[in-house]
Structures are given as structure tokens and as C-alpha cells.
């Protein structure tokens, strides 16, 4: 087998295993760590597909910023192992079943049309930053700017939400 295929299978197994561990760990901190593992695996997939820019951005934004944020919040709440009550057995059962059915449906919907054998060679240069940047700043510049507005509003929202309630001043 070619190294690419081995890598593919390895990374997929890692991703799925880590995702399962995210869901089924008891300790929230462990869940966060496993999620970071998932992100690593997915970035590996991106590199396999020659989407280098996305791989880097995935690491920086997701694993670097978002997960750290999660960790902060979890530490803030001092959540360790099991102060966490479980949902009722039946509900968990139903949840697993529905999730599994969802996957089955996707699989069934998307399986085996022979026209799908397009290859995933690692060629082409669309994943490179330069090409992406060119398209981003010409065709999609408006969404780009608007996303900065989005960030602004998110920040403001976060700050407002996070403020402590002040007692009204007594005159």
C-alpha cells in the first residue's frame, strides 16, 4: 500500500477513536484533550488533501484558541471527574440509536454510485495560500469584511454577557 493510503486509514481511525473518547469520557478535561486530538487528526487529513492553508488555520484557531477557551471555562468551574449526573438510561439509549441511525442514513444515501470514484490525488495547487488569498480578496471580499463585523459583535456580546450585575445606584 502506498504511504498515502496508510496515512489516510491511520488518521481516520485516530479521528474516530478520539471522537468517541470525547463523548464517553467522564472527566470534562479529558474530553477537551481528546477533542484536540480530533482536530489534529482532521488537520492531518487536510494536509493529505493538499489543503495546507486550512490545516494551519484549523490548528491555530480551533486547537489553539477555541479549545484553550474551553479549558479556561472548565477550570473556572472547577469541574473534575464526576460531579456530573448522568442522563437517564433510556434517553442515552435513544440517543445512541438515533445517532447511529443518522449515520446509517447518510451512508445509505451516499453509497456506491460508481460515478464517485474520483480520485484524491495530492495534486493541484488550490490549497496554497497564495491561490486562496487571491480568490478571497477579489471575489469574496465582502463576506470577509462582514466577518470582521461579526467578530466585533461577538466580542461586544461576550463582554456584555460577562459583566457582573451591578446593583442599581441608590440616590
Amino acid at each position, binding site marked *: 500500500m502506498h504511504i498515502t493510503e496508510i496515512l489516510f486509514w491511520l488518521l481516520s481511525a485516530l479521528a474516530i477513536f478520539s471522537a468517541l473518547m470525547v463523548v464517553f469520557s467522564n472527566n470534562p478535561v479529558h474530553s477537551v484533550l481528546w477533542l484536540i486530538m480530533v482536530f489534529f487528526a*482532521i488537520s492531518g487529513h487536510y494536509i493529505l488533501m493538499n*489543503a495546507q492553508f486550512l490545516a494551519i488555520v484549523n490548528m491555530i484557531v*480551533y486547537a489553539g484558541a477555541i479549545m484553550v477557551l474551553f479549558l479556561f471555562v472548565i477550570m473556572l468551574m472547577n469541574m473534575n471527574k464526576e460531579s456530573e449526573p448522568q442522563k437517564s438510561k433510556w434517553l442515552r439509549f435513544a*440517543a445512541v440509536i438515533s*445517532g447511529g441511525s443518522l449515520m446509517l442514513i447518510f451512508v445509505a444515501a451516499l453509497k456506491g454510485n460508481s460515478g464517485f470514484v474520483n480520485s484524491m*490525488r495530492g495534486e493541484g495547487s488550490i490549497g496554497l495560500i497564495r*491561490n486562496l488569498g487571491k480568490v478571497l480578496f477579489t471575489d469574496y471580499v465582502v463576506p470577509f469584511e462582514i466577518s470582521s463585523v461579526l467578530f466585533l459583535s461577538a466580542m461586544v456580546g461576550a463582554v456584555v454577557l460577562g459583566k457582573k450585575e451591578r446593583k442599581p445606584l441608590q440616590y
Partner: protein
Amino acid sequence: MNMPIIPVNYYIFLSAALFAIGVVGVLTRRNAIIIFMCIELMLNSVNVLLVAFSKMHHVAAFALDRTTAVGTEAQLFVFFIMVVAAAEVTVGLAIIVMLYRNIHSVDINFLNRLKH
């Protein structure tokens, strides 16, 4: 060089699996933060799918014309998804912190005011 061929189906199945695991996580856990993380997992699975399709289209067009830039939009879309995810996490975590401040727990079973 004999380049390996990975059918795009495999990526679709991977994405479906990750998505389903995310759904199970959302439904199973009671901790709001864990649920939030599973939502992130779902978003990422979609990202994988998008990138796989972008590659697929590009490869198909590349065979005809080596200067094509066909699959670029999908990768930019992934970029924007990440942008939105970041903003969403910000606000979402702020809400969870506020929730914790009020009821000193992040158990979603306490959020049953909608009953009334």
C-alpha cells in the same frame, strides 16, 4: 508515478461517522460544555466533507485544464465556517459562564423553565 486513489466515498463516510458521533454526544451528555464541544465536532466533520468535495471537483477539472481553480470556493467556505465557529464559541461560552453564575451548575436539566 502511480498516485494512489482514495475514493471520495471514504471521506464521506468519515464525515458521516464524525457527525453521528457528535449527535450522540449532544444527546447523551448533560454537561453544557461537553455538548458545546460535540457541536464543534459536528462542524468539523462538515469541514472535512467540504474540503473533500473541493478536492474532488478540482481533480476532475485538473485533468482537463491544469490552470483551473475550480474547488477554491469550498475551501473558502470552510474558512468562513471556522470564523463563525470562533464567534459562536465566544458568545456561547459567555452564556454558559452566566448560567453557571446564576445556578452554579451547568447541568442542562436545570434549564426547564421552558416548561411553563
